[in-house]
C-alpha cells in the first residue's frame, strides 16, 4: 500500500507521537476513501492539516479567553502601528490634530479590522474552537480598540484641570460630529464589540471572568500609556523618540507575559491527544 505524497505531507502536521501510533489506521481509512472516490482529495488533506495543528496546539492549554485577548492585543498593535507609520509619512513629525481629524483613521480601521477578522477566523478555525468563540473573537476587537485608544487620547491631550477636560470632551464630540463619516465605523464597531464582549463574559465561569477582567484592565493600562507615547503627532517635548522604544518594549513584554500566563495555566477539560487505551 502506498500513500499519496499529498497525504504523507499533510500527516506531518500531526504531533510525532500521535502519528507514530495512529498513522497506519489513518492511512488505511484514507486509502479506502480514495478507492471509492478514484483518487486523493485536497479536502481530505486540508482536514488532516487542520486537525494536526489543533492537536499540537491543545497541550499548550491556551484557554479561549486568553486567545481572544491576545488576538485583540495583536490587533491593537497592528492598527496602532499602521496609524503611526502613516502619520510619520504624512506629517513628518509635525504636530497634528486628534485622531478624528486624521485622514487615515478610516482606512487604518478598515484595513486593521479586515486583517483581524481574517486572522481570528484562521486562528480560531485552525484551533477548532467553536463557532461562537470565533465570531466573538472577530467582534471583540473593535471594543478593545475603543477602550485602549480612548485613554491614550485623553493622556495625550495633557489635561491639567477639570474645565480643560470638559472643553476637550466638547471639542472632541464636536469634531466627531463634524467628521461623522470617520467616527461612524468606530462607533458601530464599539457598540457591536461591547455587546459581543458582554455576551462572552456572561458565558464564562466566574473564575475565568475575574481573570479575563483583570487581564483587560492590566493590558488597558499598558496600552494606554504606550499609545500616548507611540504617537509621532505629539509636540517634541513629550520626548517620543526615547519613550517610544520603552513603550514598545513594555507592550511586547505585556503580551509575552500574558501568553506565558496562558501556557502555565492548567488545561481545561481532560482531553488527551494520546490514545494509550487503543494500544
Amino acid at each position, binding site marked *: 500500500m502506498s500513500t499519496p505524497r499529498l497525504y504523507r505531507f499533510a500527516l506531518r502536521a500531526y504531533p510525532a507521537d500521535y502519528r507514530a501510533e495512529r498513522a*497506519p*489506521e489513518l492511512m*488505511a481509512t484514507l486509502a*479506502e476513501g480514495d478507492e471509492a472516490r478514484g483518487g486523493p482529495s485536497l479536502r481530505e488533506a486540508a*482536514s488532516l492539516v487542520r*486537525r494536526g495543528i489543533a492537536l499540537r496546539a491543545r497541550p499548550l492549554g491556551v484557554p479561549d479567553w486568553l486567545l481572544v485577548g491576545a488576538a485583540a492585543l495583536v490587533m491593537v498593535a497592528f492598527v496602532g502601528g499602521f496609524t503611526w507609520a502613516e502619520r510619520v509619512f504624512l506629517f513628518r513629525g509635525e504636530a497634528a490634530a486628534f485622531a478624528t481629524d486624521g485622514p487615515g483613521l478610516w482606512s487604518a480601521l478598515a484595513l486593521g479590522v479586515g486583517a483581524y477578522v481574517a486572522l481570528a477566523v484562521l486562528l480560531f478555525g485552525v484551533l477548532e474552537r467553536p463557532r461562537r468563540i470565533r465570531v466573538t473573537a472577530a467582534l471583540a476587537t473593535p471594543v478593545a480598540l475603543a477602550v485602549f485608544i480612548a485613554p491614550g487620547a485623553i493622556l495625550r491631550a495633557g489635561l491639567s484641570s477639570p474645565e480643560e477636560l470638559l472643553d476637550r470632551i466638547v471639542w472632541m464630540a464636536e469634531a466627531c460630529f463634524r467628521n461623522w463619516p470617520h467616527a461612524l465605523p468606530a462607533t458601530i464597531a464599539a457598540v457591536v464589540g461591547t455587546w459581543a464582549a458582554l455576551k462572552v463574559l456572561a458565558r464564562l465561569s466566574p473564575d475565568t471572568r475575574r481573570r479575563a477582567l483583570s487581564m483587560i484592565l492590566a493590558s488597558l493600562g499598558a496600552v494606554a500609556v504606550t499609545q500616548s507615547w507611540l504617537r509621532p503627532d505629539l509636540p517634541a517635548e513629550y520626548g517620543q523618540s526615547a519613550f517610544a522604544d520603552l513603550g514598545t518594549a513594555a507592550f511586547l513584554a505585556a503580551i509575552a507575559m500574558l501568553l506565558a500566563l496562558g501556557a502555565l495555566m492548567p488545561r481545561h477539560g481532560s482531553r488527551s491527544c494520546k490514545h494509550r487505551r487503543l494500544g
Partner: protein
Amino acid sequence: MSEATYYVLAALLDGRLHGYGIIKKAEKLSGGSAKLTTGTLYGALDRLSDQRLVEPAGEEQVEGRLRRYYRITDDGAEAVRGEAERMRRAARAVNPARRAALQGGAR
C-alpha cells in the same frame, strides 16, 4: 453535540465499525449531508473516546491494511438518543399542525 459527532455515534448504534465504515454509514444515515473527512472522523473519535462514549473494539488486517474497530458504549448510546430526542422536540416547534393546535388552545 456537533453534526459529525452525532452521526459518528448514530453510525455505531448497530454494532462495531472501522474508520471508513463509520464514514460510509454516517453519509448514508444523513442522506448524504454528513460527508466526514478522515481528519474530522478521528477528531470526533478522539474526543468521544476521552468522554468514554465510544471504545476500541479490536483490530484486524484486511488486504494488508489495518482496520481498527470502534463500538459505542452505554453512555454513548444514551447521549446520542438524548440528542435525537432534543432535536425531535426542537423540530416540533416548527411543525404546522402543532402550531395550529397550540393557537387553537390559546383562544
